[in-house]
């Protein structure tokens, strides 16, 4: 069974401490630095509760499976969109298929009409 791509993982490759912030950044697509800044500010303002949350997340969340690190940037972005809103992503994919269908229809129309045109040209040369 392959690893689930819509789960939250600790990102050990881009970690500072445990990889929680890097994991959140990877999960949501927010910049890592922004997430870390948010965590630091939250820790200062929330007097340590967020730090506790950090350790709980680090303890509970599984680490990211090795095969998921080799994703291309496009794939990573795609899965971030899936996590944010699966329904919208499915709609997007359908839209892309429709677009391909339309373009294929254009080419088909051109090719068939050019066959007709060629036949007519030959007819006229006789």
């Amino acid at each position: 069974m392959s690893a689930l791509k819509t789960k939250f993982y600790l990102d050990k490759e881009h970690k500072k401490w445990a990889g929680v912030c890097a994991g959140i950044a990877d999960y949501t697509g927010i910049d890592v630095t922004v997430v870390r800044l948010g965590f630091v500010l939250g820790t200062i303002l929330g007097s340590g509760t967020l730090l506790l949350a950090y350790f709980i997340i680090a303890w509970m969340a599984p680490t990211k499976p090795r095969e998921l690190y080799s994703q291309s940037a496009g794939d990573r972005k795609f899965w971030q969109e899936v996590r944010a809103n699966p329904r919208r992503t499915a709609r997007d994919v359908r839209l892309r298929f429709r677009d391909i269908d339309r373009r294929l229809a254009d080419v088909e129309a051109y090719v068939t009409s050019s066959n007709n045109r060629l036949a007519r040209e030959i007819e006229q040369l006789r």
Partner: protein
Amino acid sequence: MDGPQILIPILVVGMLFIGLPWLVFHYITKWKTAKTLTSEDENLLDELHELARRLDDRMGTIERIVQADNPNWRALGADPVETALEDRSERLYETSERTNRPSRRT
């Protein structure tokens, strides 16, 4: 202390220990059923995404080939009645004398 005032702590405790967890778990279960994709869904989505990307690439290649073949193919494909081949007569006869230029069929 009379009747209604005794009821207040009971109500508060009830809300805190039954109502609140109920509310939280209600939304947790709702959120879970709405959001989770099974691994089958994921594979399907992955495959479709990959397929769309590949078809898109192929379509791009074919469009480039057709474009090289005839730059105004889109207009021709959209109007199949139009006989228009690419009109090269201008270019062909520009240099030669224009007297024997054949009349183009309509």
